[in-house]
Protein backbone atom coordinates (compact mmCIF):
# COMPACT_ATOMS: atom_id res chain seq x y z
CA UNK A 1 0.00 0.00 0.00
CA UNK A 2 1.47 3.33 -1.13
CA UNK A 3 -0.02 6.26 0.75
CA UNK A 4 -0.52 9.76 -0.62
CA UNK A 5 -2.42 12.68 0.92
CA UNK A 6 -2.61 14.98 -2.10
CA UNK A 7 -4.61 12.72 -4.44
CA UNK A 8 -8.28 13.61 -4.94
CA UNK A 9 -9.93 10.72 -3.10
CA UNK A 10 -6.92 9.21 -1.23
CA UNK A 11 -7.72 5.92 -2.96
CA UNK A 12 -6.74 4.72 -6.41
CA UNK A 13 -10.16 3.16 -6.98
CA UNK A 14 -11.99 6.34 -5.93
CA UNK A 15 -9.87 8.52 -8.25
CA UNK A 16 -10.32 6.02 -11.07
CA UNK A 17 -14.12 6.00 -10.68
CA UNK A 18 -14.27 9.82 -10.35
CA UNK A 19 -12.15 10.22 -13.50
CA UNK A 20 -14.43 7.98 -15.55
CA UNK A 21 -17.78 9.22 -14.26
CA UNK A 22 -16.71 12.87 -14.65
CA UNK A 23 -15.51 12.12 -18.20
CA UNK A 24 -18.95 10.73 -19.11
CA UNK A 25 -20.70 13.80 -17.63
CA UNK A 26 -18.35 16.18 -19.49
CA UNK A 27 -18.90 14.25 -22.73
CA UNK A 28 -22.70 14.48 -22.31
CA UNK A 29 -22.48 18.22 -21.52
CA UNK A 30 -20.27 18.83 -24.56
CA UNK A 31 -22.63 16.85 -26.81
CA UNK A 32 -25.58 18.81 -25.44
CA UNK A 33 -23.89 22.16 -26.15
CA UNK A 34 -22.83 21.08 -29.66
CA UNK A 35 -26.41 19.98 -30.33
CA UNK A 36 -27.78 23.25 -28.89
CA UNK A 37 -25.44 25.41 -31.03
CA UNK A 38 -26.43 23.34 -34.08
CA UNK A 39 -30.07 24.13 -33.31
CA UNK A 40 -29.30 27.84 -32.85
CA UNK A 41 -26.86 28.84 -35.60
CA UNK A 42 -27.45 32.58 -35.13
CA UNK A 43 -27.28 32.58 -31.34
CA UNK A 44 -28.02 35.88 -29.60
CA UNK A 45 -27.66 36.98 -25.97
CA UNK A 46 -31.39 36.48 -25.35
CA UNK A 47 -31.36 32.82 -26.38
CA UNK A 48 -28.19 32.12 -24.37
CA UNK A 49 -29.64 33.90 -21.34
CA UNK A 50 -32.94 32.06 -21.77
CA UNK A 51 -31.09 28.70 -21.78
CA UNK A 52 -29.33 29.46 -18.50
CA UNK A 53 -32.48 30.76 -16.81
CA UNK A 54 -33.71 27.18 -16.84
CA UNK A 55 -32.91 25.54 -13.47
CA UNK A 56 -32.18 22.13 -15.02
CA UNK A 57 -29.56 23.72 -17.32
CA UNK A 58 -27.94 25.43 -14.35
CA UNK A 59 -27.87 22.14 -12.41
CA UNK A 60 -26.43 20.35 -15.46
CA UNK A 61 -23.80 23.11 -15.84
CA UNK A 62 -22.92 22.93 -12.15
CA UNK A 63 -22.58 19.16 -12.43
CA UNK A 64 -20.29 19.63 -15.43
CA UNK A 65 -18.28 22.24 -13.50
CA UNK A 66 -17.82 19.89 -10.50
CA UNK A 67 -16.88 17.11 -12.94
CA UNK A 68 -14.34 19.36 -14.66
CA UNK A 69 -12.74 20.33 -11.33
CA UNK A 70 -12.56 16.71 -10.10
CA UNK A 71 -11.33 15.46 -13.49
CA UNK A 72 -8.66 18.16 -13.63
CA UNK A 73 -7.49 17.47 -10.08
CA UNK A 74 -7.07 13.73 -10.71
CA UNK A 75 -5.36 14.43 -14.05
CA UNK A 76 -2.98 17.13 -12.83
CA UNK A 77 -2.14 15.12 -9.71
CA UNK A 78 -1.27 12.13 -11.91
CA UNK A 79 0.91 14.24 -14.20
CA UNK A 80 2.77 15.86 -11.29
CA UNK A 81 3.44 12.51 -9.64
CA UNK A 82 4.62 11.07 -12.96
CA UNK A 83 7.00 13.82 -14.02
CA UNK A 84 7.89 15.91 -10.96
CA UNK A 85 9.76 13.15 -9.19
CA UNK A 86 13.28 12.75 -7.76
CA UNK A 87 14.20 10.95 -11.01
CA UNK A 88 13.75 14.20 -12.96
CA UNK A 89 14.23 16.93 -10.34
CA UNK A 90 16.48 15.38 -7.71
CA UNK A 91 16.23 16.55 -4.11
CA UNK A 92 13.88 19.47 -4.92
CA UNK A 93 11.21 17.18 -6.37
CA UNK A 94 8.94 17.00 -3.32
CA UNK A 95 8.94 20.77 -2.77
CA UNK A 96 8.33 21.55 -6.47
CA UNK A 97 5.61 18.89 -6.79
CA UNK A 98 3.81 20.04 -3.64
CA UNK A 99 3.92 23.70 -4.71
CA UNK A 100 2.60 22.87 -8.21
CA UNK A 101 -0.16 20.72 -6.70
CA UNK A 102 -1.09 23.53 -4.27
CA UNK A 103 -1.12 26.12 -7.07
CA UNK A 104 -3.33 23.90 -9.26
CA UNK A 105 -5.69 23.13 -6.37
CA UNK A 106 -6.07 26.83 -5.54
CA UNK A 107 -6.68 27.65 -9.22
CA UNK A 108 -9.31 24.89 -9.41
CA UNK A 109 -10.98 26.23 -6.25
CA UNK A 110 -11.07 29.74 -7.73
CA UNK A 111 -12.58 28.43 -10.98
CA UNK A 112 -15.17 26.46 -9.00
CA UNK A 113 -16.33 29.44 -6.90
CA UNK A 114 -16.19 31.74 -9.92
CA UNK A 115 -18.23 29.24 -11.95
CA UNK A 116 -20.85 28.91 -9.19
CA UNK A 117 -21.05 32.71 -8.98
CA UNK A 118 -21.60 32.96 -12.76
CA UNK A 119 -24.29 30.28 -12.71
CA UNK A 120 -26.13 31.16 -9.47
CA UNK A 121 -25.04 34.68 -8.60
CA UNK A 122 -27.07 37.80 -9.22
Amino acid at each position, binding site marked *: *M*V*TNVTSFGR*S*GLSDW*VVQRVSAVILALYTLFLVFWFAQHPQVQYEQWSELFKCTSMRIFSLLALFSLIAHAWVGVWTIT*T*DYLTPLSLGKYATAVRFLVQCACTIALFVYLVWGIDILWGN
Partner: protein
Amino acid sequence: MLTVSIYRYNPETDAEPYMQDVQLDTGGKDLMVLDVLELLKAKDETIAYRRSCREGVCGSDGMNMNGKNGLACITPLSETVKNNKLVLRPLPGLPVVRDLVVDMAIFYKQYEKVKPYLLNDSPAPAIERLQTPEEREKLDGLYECILCACCSTACPSFWWNPDKFIGPSGLLQAYRFLADSRDTATQERLAELDDPFSVFRCRGIMNCVAVCPKGLNPTRAIGHIREMLLHRGT
Protein backbone atom coordinates in the same frame (compact mmCIF):
# COMPACT_ATOMS: atom_id res chain seq x y z
CA MET B 1 27.80 -7.81 -42.93
CA LEU B 2 25.66 -6.92 -39.96
CA THR B 3 26.40 -3.75 -37.99
CA VAL B 4 25.83 -4.36 -34.31
CA SER B 5 25.66 -1.24 -32.18
CA ILE B 6 26.02 -2.32 -28.59
CA TYR B 7 25.62 -0.30 -25.38
CA ARG B 8 28.83 -0.38 -23.41
CA TYR B 9 29.38 0.79 -19.85
CA ASN B 10 31.89 -0.36 -17.32
CA PRO B 11 31.51 1.87 -14.25
CA GLU B 12 35.08 1.07 -13.18
CA THR B 13 36.67 2.46 -16.34
CA ASP B 14 34.06 4.50 -18.26
CA ALA B 15 32.95 7.99 -17.23
CA GLU B 16 29.69 7.47 -19.10
CA PRO B 17 28.02 4.87 -21.32
CA TYR B 18 28.70 4.81 -25.07
CA MET B 19 27.56 2.85 -28.14
CA GLN B 20 30.15 0.58 -29.77
CA ASP B 21 29.69 -0.38 -33.42
CA VAL B 22 30.96 -3.79 -34.47
CA GLN B 23 30.81 -5.39 -37.92
CA LEU B 24 29.86 -9.06 -37.90
CA ASP B 25 29.62 -11.67 -40.64
CA THR B 26 26.59 -13.85 -39.92
CA GLY B 27 27.26 -16.02 -42.97
CA GLY B 28 23.79 -15.24 -44.25
CA LYS B 29 22.20 -17.25 -41.43
CA ASP B 30 19.12 -16.09 -39.54
CA LEU B 31 20.79 -16.31 -36.13
CA MET B 32 19.17 -15.53 -32.83
CA VAL B 33 20.33 -12.27 -31.22
CA LEU B 34 21.92 -14.28 -28.41
CA ASP B 35 24.04 -16.16 -30.99
CA VAL B 36 25.21 -12.78 -32.30
CA LEU B 37 26.19 -11.79 -28.76
CA GLU B 38 28.08 -15.07 -28.33
CA LEU B 39 30.00 -14.38 -31.57
CA LEU B 40 30.77 -10.86 -30.35
CA LYS B 41 31.92 -12.18 -26.98
CA ALA B 42 34.28 -14.59 -28.76
CA LYS B 43 35.88 -11.51 -30.33
CA ASP B 44 35.76 -9.30 -27.24
CA GLU B 45 35.33 -11.09 -23.96
CA THR B 46 34.71 -7.88 -22.00
CA ILE B 47 31.11 -7.63 -23.31
CA ALA B 48 28.78 -8.41 -20.41
CA TYR B 49 25.24 -9.82 -20.62
CA ARG B 50 23.13 -12.36 -18.77
CA ARG B 51 22.11 -15.66 -20.32
CA SER B 52 21.34 -19.18 -19.21
CA CYS B 53 18.91 -21.59 -20.85
CA ARG B 54 19.07 -20.06 -24.37
CA GLU B 55 15.52 -21.24 -25.11
CA GLY B 56 13.19 -18.58 -23.68
CA VAL B 57 12.52 -20.31 -20.38
CA CYS B 58 14.84 -18.73 -17.80
CA GLY B 59 14.22 -15.08 -18.70
CA SER B 60 17.84 -14.04 -18.16
CA ASP B 61 18.62 -12.34 -21.46
CA GLY B 62 15.89 -9.71 -21.58
CA MET B 63 17.23 -6.68 -23.46
CA ASN B 64 16.23 -3.90 -25.81
CA MET B 65 16.78 -4.89 -29.43
CA ASN B 66 16.28 -2.18 -32.06
CA GLY B 67 14.03 -0.32 -29.63
CA LYS B 68 11.87 -3.25 -28.51
CA ASN B 69 12.31 -5.33 -25.39
CA GLY B 70 12.53 -9.10 -25.78
CA LEU B 71 14.56 -12.20 -25.06
CA ALA B 72 17.74 -12.33 -27.16
CA CYS B 73 17.71 -16.14 -27.26
CA ILE B 74 14.37 -16.47 -29.04
CA THR B 75 14.49 -13.34 -31.21
CA PRO B 76 15.76 -14.13 -34.71
CA LEU B 77 17.63 -11.42 -36.61
CA SER B 78 14.95 -11.50 -39.33
CA GLU B 79 12.41 -10.32 -36.74
CA THR B 80 14.36 -7.36 -35.42
CA VAL B 81 17.07 -6.19 -37.86
CA LYS B 82 16.30 -3.23 -40.11
CA ASN B 83 18.71 -1.84 -42.73
CA ASN B 84 21.31 -4.40 -41.67
CA LYS B 85 21.66 -2.78 -38.24
CA LEU B 86 21.08 -4.24 -34.80
CA VAL B 87 21.08 -1.86 -31.83
CA LEU B 88 21.38 -3.60 -28.46
CA ARG B 89 20.68 -1.73 -25.25
CA PRO B 90 19.96 -2.85 -21.68
CA LEU B 91 16.34 -2.99 -20.49
CA PRO B 92 15.24 0.66 -20.11
CA GLY B 93 14.52 2.26 -16.76
CA LEU B 94 16.69 0.07 -14.55
CA PRO B 95 20.18 1.00 -13.30
CA VAL B 96 22.94 -0.50 -15.46
CA VAL B 97 25.45 -2.69 -13.65
CA ARG B 98 27.60 -3.19 -16.74
CA ASP B 99 26.93 -3.23 -20.53
CA LEU B 100 23.64 -5.13 -20.98
CA VAL B 101 23.38 -6.23 -17.35
CA VAL B 102 20.85 -4.28 -15.27
CA ASP B 103 20.18 -4.15 -11.55
CA MET B 104 16.75 -5.77 -11.14
CA ALA B 105 16.42 -5.20 -7.36
CA ILE B 106 13.48 -2.77 -7.65
CA PHE B 107 11.69 -5.13 -10.06
CA TYR B 108 11.99 -8.01 -7.59
CA LYS B 109 10.93 -5.72 -4.73
CA GLN B 110 7.67 -5.00 -6.54
CA TYR B 111 7.24 -8.74 -7.18
CA GLU B 112 7.80 -9.45 -3.49
CA LYS B 113 5.13 -6.87 -2.56
CA VAL B 114 2.31 -8.91 -4.13
CA LYS B 115 3.16 -11.94 -1.93
CA PRO B 116 3.61 -14.31 -4.88
CA TYR B 117 2.73 -17.49 -2.99
CA LEU B 118 -0.46 -19.18 -1.83
CA LEU B 119 -1.91 -17.88 1.42
CA ASN B 120 -4.39 -20.28 2.97
CA ASP B 121 -5.39 -20.26 6.62
CA SER B 122 -7.43 -23.48 6.54
CA PRO B 123 -5.84 -26.73 7.80
CA ALA B 124 -3.84 -28.47 5.08
CA PRO B 125 -5.55 -31.59 3.71
CA ALA B 126 -3.86 -35.00 3.88
CA ILE B 127 -2.67 -34.99 0.28
CA GLU B 128 -3.27 -31.76 -1.65
CA ARG B 129 -5.70 -28.86 -2.15
CA LEU B 130 -7.82 -29.86 -5.10
CA GLN B 131 -9.09 -27.61 -7.88
CA THR B 132 -11.71 -28.26 -10.52
CA PRO B 133 -10.50 -28.10 -14.13
CA GLU B 134 -12.43 -24.78 -14.46
CA GLU B 135 -10.70 -23.30 -11.41
CA ARG B 136 -7.34 -24.42 -12.74
CA GLU B 137 -8.10 -22.94 -16.15
CA LYS B 138 -8.31 -19.46 -14.60
CA LEU B 139 -4.55 -19.58 -13.98
CA ASP B 140 -3.72 -20.11 -17.66
CA GLY B 141 -2.06 -17.05 -19.14
CA LEU B 142 -0.88 -16.01 -15.66
CA TYR B 143 1.40 -18.68 -14.23
CA GLU B 144 3.60 -18.82 -17.35
CA CYS B 145 5.40 -15.54 -16.53
CA ILE B 146 9.18 -16.05 -16.33
CA LEU B 147 9.97 -12.67 -14.70
CA CYS B 148 12.24 -11.51 -17.52
CA ALA B 149 11.15 -7.88 -16.84
CA CYS B 150 10.63 -7.11 -20.55
CA CYS B 151 7.09 -5.86 -19.82
CA SER B 152 7.73 -3.73 -16.73
CA THR B 153 10.76 -2.04 -18.31
CA ALA B 154 8.68 -1.19 -21.41
CA CYS B 155 6.10 0.58 -19.24
CA PRO B 156 6.42 4.40 -18.84
CA SER B 157 4.44 4.28 -15.58
CA PHE B 158 7.08 1.89 -14.22
CA TRP B 159 9.87 4.16 -15.50
CA TRP B 160 8.44 7.19 -13.67
CA ASN B 161 7.47 5.41 -10.42
CA PRO B 162 9.40 2.13 -10.16
CA ASP B 163 9.24 2.29 -6.36
CA LYS B 164 5.46 2.79 -6.19
CA PHE B 165 3.82 1.23 -9.27
CA ILE B 166 3.99 -2.56 -9.07
CA GLY B 167 4.32 -2.86 -12.82
CA PRO B 168 2.74 -5.25 -15.32
CA SER B 169 4.81 -8.27 -14.31
CA GLY B 170 4.07 -7.95 -10.59
CA LEU B 171 0.39 -7.24 -11.27
CA LEU B 172 0.08 -10.29 -13.52
CA GLN B 173 1.36 -12.32 -10.57
CA ALA B 174 -0.91 -10.45 -8.16
CA TYR B 175 -3.90 -11.53 -10.24
CA ARG B 176 -2.53 -15.07 -10.56
CA PHE B 177 -2.99 -15.41 -6.77
CA LEU B 178 -6.22 -13.39 -6.61
CA ALA B 179 -7.68 -15.80 -9.17
CA ASP B 180 -6.46 -18.94 -7.42
CA SER B 181 -9.31 -20.88 -5.77
CA ARG B 182 -6.90 -22.24 -3.16
CA ASP B 183 -5.92 -18.79 -1.88
CA THR B 184 -7.95 -17.37 1.03
CA ALA B 185 -6.29 -13.94 1.36
CA THR B 186 -8.17 -12.26 -1.52
CA GLN B 187 -9.53 -9.39 0.61
CA GLU B 188 -6.15 -8.69 2.24
CA ARG B 189 -4.46 -8.76 -1.15
CA LEU B 190 -7.01 -6.34 -2.62
CA ALA B 191 -6.71 -3.99 0.38
CA GLU B 192 -2.96 -3.72 -0.34
CA LEU B 193 -3.62 -2.70 -3.95
CA ASP B 194 -6.26 0.00 -3.42
CA ASP B 195 -4.00 3.04 -3.54
CA PRO B 196 -3.36 5.58 -6.32
CA PHE B 197 -0.06 3.96 -7.39
CA SER B 198 0.15 0.16 -7.06
CA VAL B 199 -2.45 -0.73 -9.72
CA PHE B 200 -4.00 2.52 -10.89
CA ARG B 201 -0.82 3.93 -12.44
CA CYS B 202 -1.57 1.59 -15.34
CA ARG B 203 -2.91 3.75 -18.16
CA GLY B 204 -3.59 0.79 -20.41
CA ILE B 205 -1.15 1.62 -23.20
CA MET B 206 -0.39 -2.10 -23.54
CA ASN B 207 3.37 -1.87 -24.15
CA CYS B 208 3.57 -4.87 -21.81
CA VAL B 209 1.37 -6.95 -24.11
CA ALA B 210 3.34 -5.88 -27.18
CA VAL B 211 6.69 -7.04 -25.78
CA CYS B 212 5.89 -10.11 -23.63
CA PRO B 213 8.01 -12.93 -25.07
CA LYS B 214 5.59 -15.50 -23.64
CA GLY B 215 2.56 -13.88 -25.30
CA LEU B 216 0.89 -13.02 -21.98
CA ASN B 217 -1.53 -10.15 -21.39
CA PRO B 218 -0.77 -8.19 -18.18
CA THR B 219 -3.19 -5.39 -19.20
CA ARG B 220 -6.09 -7.84 -19.11
CA ALA B 221 -4.98 -9.10 -15.67
CA ILE B 222 -4.79 -5.49 -14.42
CA GLY B 223 -8.33 -4.97 -15.77
CA HIS B 224 -9.50 -7.99 -13.75
CA ILE B 225 -7.84 -6.59 -10.61
CA ARG B 226 -9.63 -3.25 -11.19
CA GLU B 227 -12.93 -5.10 -11.55
CA MET B 228 -12.31 -6.97 -8.28
CA LEU B 229 -11.43 -3.70 -6.52
CA LEU B 230 -14.57 -2.12 -7.96
CA HIS B 231 -16.78 -4.97 -6.72
CA ARG B 232 -15.13 -4.76 -3.32
CA GLY B 233 -15.26 -0.97 -3.07
CA THR B 234 -18.69 -0.04 -4.38
